[in-house]
């Protein structure tokens, strides 16, 4: 009797695994197929890379370059840590990802500074305060600045 139940219990266990994993696997596939239909031609990282790549001819292959964005530099990581907005850090990291091995410093205190304003312009007076003079506007919120040597 015990062996009989043991046999069917084990089969029930196998059936449980088959049903639930089948549901999970096919559910994931269905979810991905639905996503596939709505996929843009390019993913956000590739788009960002192509955007940032335009800077390369104007920058040295290695060395350092500054970086500014919509919010003050010291708030980029703060927003991410508090889960308020991870976009600023993502944009900064992707700029670095594209331009490596050139080091992109999260600071406006460099002779050349990249302005990445996908989420809007910086606070009024921010550029003037840091002595940033526009070198070239690539459009789509991407601007290369040079630092005013007097500042």
């Amino acid at each position: 009797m015990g062996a009989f139940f043991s046999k069917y219990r084990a089969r029930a266990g196998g059936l449980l695994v088959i049903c639930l994993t089948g549901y999970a696997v096919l559910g994931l596939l269905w979810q991905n197929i639905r996503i596939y239909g709505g996929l843009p031609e390019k993913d956000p990282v590739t788009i960002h890379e192509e955007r940032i790549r335009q800077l390369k001819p104007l920058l040295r292959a290695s060395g350092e370059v500054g970086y500014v964005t919509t919010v003050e530099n010291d708030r980029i990581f703060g927003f991410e840590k508090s889960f308020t907005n991870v976009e600023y850090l993502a944009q900064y990291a992707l700029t670095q990802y594209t331009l490596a091995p050139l080091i992109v410093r999260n600071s406006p205190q460099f002779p050349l500074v990249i302005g990445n304003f996908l989420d809007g312009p910086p606070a009024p007076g921010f550029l003037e305060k840091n002595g940033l003079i526009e070198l070239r506007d690539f459009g789509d919120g991407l601007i290369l600045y040079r630092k005013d040597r007097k500042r």
Partner: protein
Amino acid sequence: MTTLSFIASLLLFLVIGYLLSIVFLPQPKSGASAFAFRLSAGAGLGIGVTSCIAFICLLAGLTRYLPAIDVAVCLVLGLICLALSRRGLAGKPPSLSQTRPFSGLLVVLAALFSIELIATILSFAVAFLKEPHGRWDAWLIWNMHARFLFRSGEAWRSVFAGGMEWSHWDYPLLLPLSAVRSWTYMGGESNTVPAVFAFLFTFLIIALLLFSLSLLRSRTHGLLATMILMGTPFFVSLGVSQFADIPFAFFVLATLIMLFFQGRSPENRTGSLILAGTAAGLCAWTKNEGLLFVLIAAVSVAGAAAVDGGGRQFVRRTGGFLAGALPVLLIVLYFKTRISPANDLVAGFSLAAASIKMLDPARYIEIAKAFFFTGISFTQGLIDVRVGMHFNPGAVNILLLAGYLLLAGVKTDPRDRICLFQTGAVLLLMLAGYFSVYVLTPLDLTYHLFTSLNRLFLQMWPSVIFVVFMIAGAPGEESAPGDGRDALPPLKPKAAKGKNKASLPEESSGRPLRDIPDREWTMSHEVRERNEYNKNPVRRHARLQREGDHSDDHREGAPA
């Protein structure tokens, strides 16, 4: 040309890994499962070992000769294999489950498994098309490091002192250097390379789980276990994300599997242990938490050897494990002491702050709560920080494993007992270690838990599934737990030893069956019946007569 070069880079690590498995693993047995097991274990180890070679070349400024050096390593390993095979390297094979012919149930199971495998590959492919660069940590850490190392040329060291702490330059280099190695072969970068490694590690884990369980238990065990892994959405999602957690999970699983092979191969113990040590060392070369894993695994091996075999076994087994781990650990040590900046957790550590945290019960409660909620939910995917910790169990989670174990029953093979304690202890101590790190973390606790705990759990998930299926029974094998058919006594007993004694058949390990107290537990129904039959002296004698063995005609109760 670049595609061919890339394929060459893949083939070379595959050959190196496969040859390593031939050198160190006793021939499990012939057949497709054994070959596939060697291939899946060897491929992962090959990626790790060639990454170490790439690091040494980077240090020595020999990166351009990398393909030639890889070929030379291949040749040396090939010669060692040849020499060992001439001397009869195999020794006694490990005692593994016997391959059963495909039953109806197994055919159905294999068909369902194939459907799930195809669905998983398609899910992976679509997710890759959606995010070909991987997710957050891929381009913020791993692939970014690979780009820096490849593009910097001779000046690669300077990036570690570049002050980019936010990209965690203290993280080990197995994954970045694997990409760099392939790019070196190809002579240029390709975004496909990191994605191929992500694919390889994801499906190597599936293969390793499938074939190791097929060898150690049964095909049914292997198929059901891998179905649970493939049914884990977070496993596929993290795999395609190109994070290092999946390679780390591979090496953890490989370490534990090698420990079981060591338990099953008493004649050639150090070979499996050396590979276990190498896999554990490669954990440390993949992620920082690997250092904790090596320590725990080494202590577990030493502890098990001391309990099981005494002083000599302690030295032999611990030495074997450390011999495998040491070459990789020396590389990690050099990287940590000479090249990488300080880790953010270590740099932010202070004894005063740590003692305050250790005495704060609120931290323990928060961590325990996070462990519980994440433990139930981590299989489903990333934590939504807007929702916070909450129940999200999904179809496949730890409760499914518990439910399966409850239904299928606990049916272990006595030969695995020490290994089960050993691997169970490793997994529990890893969890305890992670708990302690969270107690002492200098980072914001909620942030740290939200951004890492589910990945840490997933790193252990394939190994947990493996260990559970080493314990559990399986449908269709209800009366043959552990598929211990390899340990079955033959129908015809061997020659009698001495008066009134019929010899007991011995296992392939050379261990007499009578030394295994609960052997009957592992026997099939058929064998139990046969043994009951043999206990009856009249029936037994009649049978021996039929089989032409008269060695114990003189036994009491034998008919005249």
